């Protein structure tokens, strides 16, 4: 093993953005607009910032137009609160919902190609969970760019950051956060394309590494969403929050895990099991196939668990059928053509004549790195880490609590990105320079990588990865229970042990996928472990977290879970109170913001 | 994945002839027929450039009619007439396809499947008619009237393109390339046609000399030779630009080409003007 790992060079921008997705870049642009000339380096794991996963979001971005005659911001706030199963923070709800329209205008002015109404204004469409008059009728609240809203956002913030001269390190991963006296002063970055390690020392570091649900067998997340960001946070001894809250979408296309929108069921699509039985009639006799996402997901999983699911011959995954054959031709052609096209394109099925294989798919992680309302990363429920910020799906401020409403995530990442940008710009004003590279910089990542490079085991990476995915889907997925979770934790420990004896196929540092996957696997295991622990501790069901043994929400657990893990498997839990400032302010309609039922 | 393949109906049309070639169907499948058409256009253009150099060289013998006659004797055989006929393929293909390109780019005629079909149909008609006349021989047409018509059509077609393109911000030479193309379309196809209406007379030095001495013809031929060499020169210039990244080498080659083509253009103009 001749190679000695070392830091190749040191870069000293003012700001380091880890994760150049929608959130990270919105933040970078905000800083540049407030403080022109700020030097910013943005690191991204993908091949170009434009490839970040924000680009895959389709539906839309929620915002209440103040000129709208019927919709009101308070309705949006209520929907979000209710949707979260009363576990989001009301100060964040207020902040995000109130500035939503401004963010839409910001995007529009910076060149996003929103779909338009006849009058040339931004068009809006209804979306699940968004209602008028406190849950009475559908609200037209989601601003959209055809079926590619996320792409529009991504293109806009990416192009704007180019304009401001943000420097990108593509195909590079942040692999260790650097601290001095408790202040974050940057990170070590590994550049995949040339195999070099860089130290980036910055006055402020912003983490926005996005989604993290690749540990599930079927997931809508991209190949790069392996929870690296959270793992870095955990390594640094910082907490993560509400990780048990994972959102599953009931109808993911088997294999690629692509979303088959609720619209299909809205137009009359029926879920069937192996025997062709329309099983939703059994579980929800009235709402049937249109029951809420989490319920439908659970029913599908139940069918599969009780042996009434099918196994996909090519992708080897369990699934049920979505039947669209009886839907009239003209509906196929006009209203659901796009989504049906996905079945055609990705699994070669003609929905008009064949059954479509679907299965619940891990979609969104509500939890993340806890931040205060300015996006400053928290050390515990009170204190923040100076110099470290977080936004986007990676962070939990938290707007979503234990369940996210569709279209609220894009909204959150843009608003919180802006909020963090504003905060950082102010902070940069009199922040000290980060100083020299700390003595022990890189020690953690180098020992990690040396271990990988020295590994001479027999186990193949894919074995562990697949075992992990199945395990998480079965035991820490849609359904959870005490026994399963405990088993999962044991199994995870085993997997981690196995991961120490993997077989590395090439010892090159340049674009070595195998090596990087070792690193990612470590993170997947870390984050999975924390999810399992958090899920075990929350002995209730709330939002995306469903415990079979405790199927009801319980007031006892009216708090956010904080979790720390510096040593694998040793998870320490803490709590953060849920902000109820709207309720406490006793303004108009305050009673709607108490502990209410989540019923649709 | 399968949709774009179906987008061009051209493929279906050309199946019989072209699908037999492995290379062509490889490109047709991976890049579409437009890609092949572009290459064919380029190759035809290059053949024409070479032919023009050769053409001016042979015409220069007109200074000494006796030499011209002996040269013509030399080429007056079956193989050479076949080549002469075969020349019609690149000529008419380049001319019609060039027209298609101009229509696509500047006149918004984007029904490409149909346009490509027309290129092939008209080309075949032209080539076959040419063969017919070559075999028949002895056709009569009033030279004055013929060339007047050609000149008028050329003027009209180039004016239309000029009007359509000149105000745009495209490079001036680029625009001139299209305008000259439009001017050449009737001229080249007419020229080729005329020379074959009566194959024997087409090569007869007396007839040629008589025609060249007509002032109207002189004017037209000078315009012809200037535009062809400009068009050829700019064509070569853009091709060079596609392949050579080094800007010094590129300028060097541009100068070289301009010089060679300039000399030939001068020689060509001198022939018609001084004989």
């Amino acid at each position, binding site marked *: 093993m001749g190679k000695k790992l070392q830091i190749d060079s040191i870069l000293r921008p003012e700001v380091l953005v880890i994760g150049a997705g929608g959130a990270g870049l919105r933040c970078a642009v905000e800083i540049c607009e407030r403080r022109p000339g700020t030097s910013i380096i943005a690191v991204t794991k993908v091949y*170009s910032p*434009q490839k970040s996963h924000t680009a895959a979001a389709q539906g839309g971005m929620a915002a209440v137009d103040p000129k709208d005659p019927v919709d009101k911001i308070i309705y949006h706030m209520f929907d979000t609160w209710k949707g979260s199963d009363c576990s989001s923070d009301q100060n964040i709800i207020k902040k995000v919902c109130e500035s939503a329209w401004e963010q839409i205008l910001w995007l529009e002015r910076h060149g996003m190609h929103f779909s338009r109404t006849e009058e040339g204004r931004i068009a809006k469409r209804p979306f699940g969970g968004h209602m008028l008059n406190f849950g009475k009728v559908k609200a037209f609240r989601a601003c959209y760019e055809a079926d590619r809203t996320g792409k529009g956002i991504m293109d806009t913030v990416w192009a704007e950051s180019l304009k401001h001269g943000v420097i990108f390190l593509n195909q590079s991963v942040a692999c260790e956060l650097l601290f001095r006296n408790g202040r974050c002063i940057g990170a070590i970055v590994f550049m995949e394309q040339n195999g070099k390690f860089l130290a980036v020392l910055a006055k402020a570091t912003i983490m926005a590494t996005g989604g993290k649900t690749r540990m599930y067998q079927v997931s809508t997340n991209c190949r790069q969403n392996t929870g690296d960001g959270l793992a870095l946070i955990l390594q640094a001894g910082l907490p993560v929050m509400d990780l048990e809250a994972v959102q599953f979408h009931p109808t993911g296309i088997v294999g690629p895990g692509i979303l088959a929108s609720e619209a299909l069921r809205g137009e009359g699509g029926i879920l069937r099991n192996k025997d062709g039985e329309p099983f939703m009639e059994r579980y929800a006799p009235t709402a049937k196939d249109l029951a809420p996402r989490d319920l439908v997901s659970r029913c599908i999983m139940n069918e599969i668990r009780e042996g009434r699911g099918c196994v996909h011959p090519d*992708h080897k995954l369990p699934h049920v059928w979505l039947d669209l054959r009886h839907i009239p031709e003209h509906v196929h052609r006009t209203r659901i053509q796009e989504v049906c096209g996905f079945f055609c394109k990705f699994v070669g099925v003609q929905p008009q004549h064949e059954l479509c294989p679907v299965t619940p798919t891990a979609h969104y992680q509500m939890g993340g790195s806890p931040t205060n309302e300015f996006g400053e990363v928290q050390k515990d429920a009170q204190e923040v880490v100076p110099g470290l910020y977080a936004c986007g799906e990676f962070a939990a401020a938290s707007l979503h609590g234990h369940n996210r409403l569709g279209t609220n995530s894009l909204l959150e990442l843009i608003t919180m990105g802006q909020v963090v940008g504003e905060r950082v710009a102010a902070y940069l004003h009199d922040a000290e320079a980060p100083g020299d590279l700390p003595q022990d910089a890189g020690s953690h990542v180098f020992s990690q990588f040396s271990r990988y490079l020295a590994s001479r085991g027999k186990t193949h990476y894919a074995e562990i990865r697949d075992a992990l995915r199945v395990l998480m889907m079965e035991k820490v997925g849609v359904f959870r229970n005490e026994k399963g979770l405990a088993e999962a934790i044991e199994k995870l420990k085993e997997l981690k042990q196995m991961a120490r004896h993997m077989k590395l196929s090439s010892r090159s540092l340049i674009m070595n996928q195998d090596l990087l996957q070792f690193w990612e696997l470590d993170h997947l295991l870390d984050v999975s472990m924390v999810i399992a622990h958090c899920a075990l501790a929350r002995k209730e069901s709330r939002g995306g977290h469903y415990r079979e043994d405790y199927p009801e929400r319980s007031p006892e657990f009216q708090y956010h879970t904080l979790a720390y893990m510096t040593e694998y498997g040793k998870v320490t839990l803490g709590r953060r109170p849920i902000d109820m400032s709207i309720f406490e302010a006793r303004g108009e309609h305050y009673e709607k913001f108490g502990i209410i039922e989540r019923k649709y | 994945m399968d949709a774009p393949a179906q987008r061009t109906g051209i493929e279906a049309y050309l199946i019989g002839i072209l699908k037999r070639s492995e290379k062509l169907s490889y490109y047709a*499948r991976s890049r579409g027929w437009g890609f092949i058409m572009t290459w064919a256009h380029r190759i035809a253009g290059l053949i024409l450039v070479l032919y023009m150099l050769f053409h001016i060289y042979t015409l220069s013998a007109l200074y000494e009619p006796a030499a011209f006659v002996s040269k013509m004797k030399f080429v007056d055989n079956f193989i050479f007439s076949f080549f002469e006929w075969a020349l019609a393929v690149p000529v008419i293909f380049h001319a019609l396809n060039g027209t298609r390109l101009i229509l696509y780019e500047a006149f918004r005629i984007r029904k490409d499947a149909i346009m490509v079909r027309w290129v092939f149909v008209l080309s075949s008609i032209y080539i076959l008619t040419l063969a017919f006349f070559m075999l028949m021989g002895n056709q009569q047409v009033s030279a004055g009237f013929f060339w007047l018509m050609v000149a008028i059509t050329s003027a009209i077609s180039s004016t239309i393109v000029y009007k359509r*393109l000149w105000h745009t*911000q495209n490079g001036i030479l680029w625009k001139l390339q299209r305008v000259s193309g439009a001017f050449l379309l009737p001229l080249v196809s007419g020229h080729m046609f005329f020379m074959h209406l009566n194959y024997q007379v087409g090569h007869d030095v007396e007839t040629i000399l008589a025609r060249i001495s007509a002032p109207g013809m002189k004017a037209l031929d000078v315009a012809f030779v200037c535009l062809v060499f400009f068009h050829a020169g700019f064509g070569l210039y853009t091709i060079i630009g596609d392949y050579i990244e080094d800007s010094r080498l590129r300028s060097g080659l541009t100068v070289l080409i301009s010089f060679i083509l300039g000399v030939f253009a001068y020689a060509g103009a001198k022939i018609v003007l001084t004989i």
Partner: protein
Amino acid sequence: MSQEYDLTLKISRYDPDTQLSWVQVYRLKAGRILRFVDLFRKINDEQDPTLAWSSSCEHGQCGTCGMKINGKPLLTCELLVENAVKFFKTQTFTVEPLTVAPVIRDLVIDMEKAYERVHFVKPHIIQPAPQHPDGDEYRISPRVLETYVEATRCINCFCCATACVTQKNYLGPNALLANIVRLMDPREMAKQERMDILYSDQGTPRCRTAQACSFVCPKEIDIAHFIALAKEGNFK
């Protein structure tokens, strides 16, 4: 019900450490609806973990996984085995990286290099139009939007640039498209600057209307049409 195919993949490989390139042949069995990215993963899992390939979203939405399959540039996360067999009429496929940028390893290219051309045309609004008097959004009629909305769907996968006849001294179809979008966007005021880029030596004159770009574009954008609009000098 599921048909298995015996596939042969001839994959171009390149090792940056030794700077050797070669073609490696992999044989594998695969079900009809596996996508090419799944095949690569299968090769990684079962035969050769060293094969490097690129993908991200695997939704056909990011443009990371572009490669040449039997010469045709396409998104490998959208290409089902079944469709490939049908389209190319063979079960043997050559897999090569796109040619728009140098290869880093195997099928992974240096996208950053390829992107330089897109950066050059400035995909943002250079100089925004004055705001609407009401202070809210700029009004764009759906009719106007319709003329260029197709072009906004480009995901910069560089398939078109790989297919094009012109490979050098050319910004490429997608970069031109990014420029043209902003020329057609009523919110952009710096039209002249954009025109200068558009008609420069690296711009439209290099396009030969080969339409290979439109032919291969996975988003089915008629790029040639937009470039022709530019040549026509009339963006309506």
